[in-house]
């Protein structure tokens, strides 16, 4: 009943593994930003990818997502939430960018007005 999740609730091993992975990935992301002179696009992509990998690893090793018994309600609910969040965050950035572009006067537009 209690250790339904493959005994992972009892084990120290996945926590230690997840911790080591997180240390490496965090240090890598920090080092890429502070020590290497790469273009902004490459840096942004690297930081986002490293962050997402670390989040997925922590979800598996710490929160045991994807390891629960069928039907995988925890995983399904997470995936649905991720889908909603992509729409919410991506949509907000997209629409506000266009709004800012079309509505807010830039400096040269202001000069033309005067």
């Amino acid at each position, binding site marked *: 009943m209690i250790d339904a999740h493959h005994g992972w609730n009892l084990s120290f091993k996945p926590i230690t593994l997840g*911790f080591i992975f997180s240390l490496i990935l965090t240090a890598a992301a*920090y080092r890429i930003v502070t020590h290497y002179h790469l273009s902004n696009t490459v840096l*942004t992509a690297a930081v986002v990818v490293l962050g997402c990998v670390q*989040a997925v690893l922590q979800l598996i090793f710490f*929160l045991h997502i994807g390891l629960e018994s069928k039907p995988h309600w925890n995983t399904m*609910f*997470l995936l649905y939430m991720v889908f909603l969040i992509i729409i919410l965050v991506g949509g907000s950035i997209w629409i506000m960018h266009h709004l800012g572009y079309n509505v807010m006067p830039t400096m040269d537009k202001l000069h033309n007005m005067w």
Partner: protein
Amino acid sequence: MTQSKAMKHEPLPDPYQDEYSRTTFGFWVYLLTDFMMFATIFAVYAVLHKSTFGGPGPKELFDLPSVMNQTWVLLVATFFVGFGGASVHRKHRAGTITYFLLTFILGITFLWLQFDDLSLLVKRGASWKSNAFLSAYFTLIGTFAVHIVFGLLWIIVLILPVIKRGIDMVSVRRLTCLRMFWQFLNIIWIFIFSIVYLLGVIQ
């Protein structure tokens, strides 16, 4: 659904029958709605992070080494809370108390480091009143800090009965929820660290 229709189907095996599974699943649903709230604040920050009203931006204001220290402290706290969770399931009372108290101490350290950072910003004139970017930033960081404060209170409330009476079924369930709460906060922090701080310093 009528009685006869219901009788036709074989009952599906339901893995969420016992109270422990139902509670942890319900708590997971709560955590995901909390995730949604953080995502909304993130969206606000993403939209407003360039609106500095002529003032200094993320690159000039953020102290990356200090944020790195906060990240290490929080990560180690998450490591200990995981050990605490495993100890509860093993019914190790001493281990449970030790690991959760270590998490508590590291959580306090994290808050103290963060408060130091934020009060320095305010002293330099970059408070939440200065511009839209800083309002969004303080809202995001403040919401996170409030979550940590409640996590710390929750540790005290749950550890005291364990010290007094030992570990029973109820404390296993509650401490598992607390463990999930803390680990979830660390995942939120990954995104704050990567997107707000690391990408903020790049741009």
